[in-house]
């Protein structure tokens, strides 16, 4: 039996499901690209089958499997396979002015909500109780809606300052309803009650989706007699263990774009540059900072719902290898229609009838693919279309850039043959090997991170003490998630002072990351340290009153 030492990375995109296998020396030894299936697990299974059958692959060497997918977003958009959630907000007598799910699309609220309530409790910005937690009201609410709910989403005012009321409420849920899925807001989002509450509710709604994907992956691997450790990629492109992903599926919602940025970094060894991921239908341009995707400063909307997730900060344009070009009166038009995965039948270079940007790229000599050369009569159209595409791409790149200086651009994705070698503001265009499966490579890189985003009142020790505390908590979270403690370092730390408060108060965001490989013992210890920290928050003197 070979020693299990290879990683299998899977990325479920809009058009294709990609898979790669990476050996212990970090080389890509096999890759596969298969069309997505409506149930997504079919595509995952096909990609796994295909990559495991590639020449030179010994399936028994697979030790870890990592999956990145934007499937959760689609489930919300399509209202598919969503669970019903009891929505518990802890913050009365504050917060009644805007009730839970007030701005949700009505049909989505009806699909997801098993009932909503606001109970007394919650925390002040300085850590005091807003009001005592009304445990009886929680028990009553659970008694009313428990039967209809698959899970409970709990959000307390200022949980990012102290999660103690959320933790107490979770205990009541366990007592009243047993082992139902519980989503706690302090594990999901930061400051911004409604946005964090929305994300927490979505998390509960997505619990079934995550379970199905995990089960599909398990079954596909079991068919090859494999039981590797399974991970999911999250919004910053780092990994979390299966158990954590099942509890917090919403954290995987932005993993698709993050994976290609991380994959581009890995394939080039470049940690700071721009990344253009050109697919069949669209192009995402993101920024690689210190090896990670730059995140948006504002929360994103998912299916019309505001959340406070920080997702990769991208500019997306409707430009891809399958983008259809045509002439409308005297004007050359690009898309937005794309032939998508039908490119091998539709594009001129594959003998099809439809001029696409891939044909433009081939006609201009940027790539040599397909068997047919586009005919002379299309020449002007294709050239004009490519010139337009170059301008669109250059504008999008300029929108993403944050400094005047020229930066390198890494071009990845199946459609990246479109990207010209010279672009204003770009010092060089880097085209790594395996560019067409950079996203699956990104999933398989095996970095594990831990994040903290909390409010600190500066007391003794001032800023330094608060920054240290945030940093060690981020480190503990990374190790608990499976990072090798020897490799964990702080990759990002940011402090934001809060205005209009006379006592000095800051919000600190810290992120630590390391490589996969912590020993079970180390994970356990980090988890214990984290538990101890949480126990500190549950000050007995304060909770006795409740």
């Amino acid at each position, binding site marked *: 039996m070979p020693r299990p030492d290879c990683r299998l990375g899977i990325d479920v995109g809009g058009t294709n499901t990609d898979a790669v296998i990476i050996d212990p020396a970090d080389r890509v030894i096999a890759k596969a690209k298969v069309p997505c299936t409506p149930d997504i697990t079919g595509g995952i299974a096909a990609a796994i089958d295909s990559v495991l059958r590639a020449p030179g692959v010994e399936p028994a060497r697979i030790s870890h499997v990592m999956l990145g997918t934007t499937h959760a977003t689609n489930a919300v958009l399509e209202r598919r396979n969503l669970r019903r959630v009891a929505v518990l907000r802890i913050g009365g007598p504050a*917060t009644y*002015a*805007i009730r839970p799910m*007030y701005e949700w699309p009505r049909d989505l609220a009806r699909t997801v909500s098993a009932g909503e309530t606001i109970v007394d409790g919650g925390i002040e*910005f300085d850590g005091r109780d807003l009001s005592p937690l009304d445990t009886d009201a929680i028990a009553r609410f659970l008694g009313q809606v428990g039967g209809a709910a698959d899970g409970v989403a709990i959000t307390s*005012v200022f949980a990012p300052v102290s999660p103690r009321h959320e933790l107490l409420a979770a205990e009541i849920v366990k007592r009243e309803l047993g082992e139902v899925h519980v989503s706690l807001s302090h594990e999901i989002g930061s*400051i911004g009650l409604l946005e964090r509450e929305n994300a927490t509710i979505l998390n509960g709604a997505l619990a079934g989706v995550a379970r199905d994907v995990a089960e599909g992956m398990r079954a596909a691997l079991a068919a090859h007699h494999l039981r590797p450790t399974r991970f999911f990629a999250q919004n910053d492109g780092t990994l979390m263990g299966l158990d954590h992903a099942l509890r917090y599926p919403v954290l995987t919602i932005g993993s698709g774009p993050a994976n290609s940025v991380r994959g581009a970094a890995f394939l080039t060894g470049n940690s700071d540059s721009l990344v253009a991921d050109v697919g069949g239908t669209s192009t995402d341009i993101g920024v690689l900072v210190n090896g990670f995707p730059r995140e948006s400063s504002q929360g994103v909307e998912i299916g019309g719902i505001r959340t406070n997730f920080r997702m990769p900060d991208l500019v997306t344009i409707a430009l891809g290898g399958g983008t259809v070009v045509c002439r409308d009166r005297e004007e050359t038009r690009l898309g937005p229609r794309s032939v998508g995965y039908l490119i091998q039948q539709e594009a001129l270079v594959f003998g099809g009838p439809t001029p696409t940007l891939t044909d433009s790229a081939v006609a201009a000599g940027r790539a040599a693919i397909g068997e047919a050369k586009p005919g002379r009569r299309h020449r002007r159209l294709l050239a004009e279309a490519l010139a337009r595409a170059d301008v669109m791409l250059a504008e999008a790149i300029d*929108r993403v850039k*944050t400094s005047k200086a020229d930066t390198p651009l890494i071009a990845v994705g199946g459609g990246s043959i479109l990207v010209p070698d010279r672009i204003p503001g770009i010092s060089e265009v880097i085209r790594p090997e395996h560019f067409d499966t950079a996203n699956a490579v990104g999933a398989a890189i095996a970095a594990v991170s831990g994040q903290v985003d909390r409010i600190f009142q500066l007391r003794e020790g001032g800023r330094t003490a608060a920054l240290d505390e945030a940093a060690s908590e981020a480190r503990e979270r990374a190790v608990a998630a499976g990072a090798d403690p020897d490799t964990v370092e702080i990759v990002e730390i940011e402090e934001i002072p809060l205005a209009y408060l006379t006592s000095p108060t800051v919000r600190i965001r810290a992120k630590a990351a390391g490589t996969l490989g912590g020993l079970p013992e180390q994970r356990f210890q980090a988890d214990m340290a984290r538990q101890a920290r949480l126990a500190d928050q549950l000050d007995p003197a304060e909770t006795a009153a409740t």
Partner: protein
Amino acid sequence: MKRLLDTDSLRAMARGCAILGAGGGGDVYLDLLQALQAIEEYGPVPLMDLDELPGDALIMPGGGVGAPTVVIEKIANGNEGERLRDQLEHLTGRQVAALMAAEIGGGNGIVPVAWAARMGLPMVDADGIGRAFPEIPQVAMHLAGIPPSPAVMTDERGNMVVFQTISGDWMERLERAAAVEFGGIAQSTEFSLTVAQARDGATVRNSVSLAIRIGEALTNAPDNPLTALIAEIGAFRLVTGKVLDVERRMTSGFTRGTVVVEGTGEDAGRLVRLELQNEHLVALERGHVLASVPDLITVLDTETADAISTERIRYGQRVTVIAFACDPVWRTGRGLEVAGPRAFGYEFDFVPVEEIARATA
């Protein structure tokens, strides 16, 4: 003309309030939701011109005092306005006839609409500033000599404090301290006044309808909202470009900082620096002042023409900076003393934005 603040006009008003916030006044989104929920439950709010109300009718100005970060977390109960009204009526022995926003800029411009819906009272088409300013005495009522007292502050729990102070500055100090104890945010009323006083220069008139008009101009010109907005308010475009640098720091409870915008397109090669203290204070280019307080300087998303607050501005955003004239009350000697460049620690005298624009044209 009597009109109703309903769902559509409130949504328009919110966009207008954000632009009149000149970068400050807090995010409008939550206040809009609060007002929408209130009118959904209690019905729309009449908007009345000051001339439609009897001169001796009492107006209750109001809004929130506190930290924006707390506002987005600890949302109000909704009943704070009623409590303020009851206490103010008790203190003055008079009945409140209408509500008014202490400042139209930002979310505080909308909060009183939610209160008014619950009380069945009208809003007057006026406010205390015509924009947003950081301190409680920076209102037209103060310039007109109306005392801030009796002021009332309350929280979502029902705690209430009555302030009787000797000056506006004391009101600022004491209310700010109390707001922190309340948990970083509280709702308050100061400078209650009669309709006659409000008509007689103690308020900025027609500012609610202006906010609505601004929002409607944006909505009605989806293809070119920026041009529509500039035409609607007679603004001057200072620069169009992208945010090159943002720096913020805390000094005595306020956010101070700078934003640098690098011109693009026809403004390529230009660098405009904004200095801010919660609101934008000054716009500078090569050491020359392009606009300054009390005139309004607002950063807009170039594409949508929506305002970007000083808390949300970040690197790389595509922005257009505009400046426009403040209400004349702020350009008087007394107005400049309270909210001119020197009141914010600058060593230069105020020059109206239209004069600077004419001089550089």
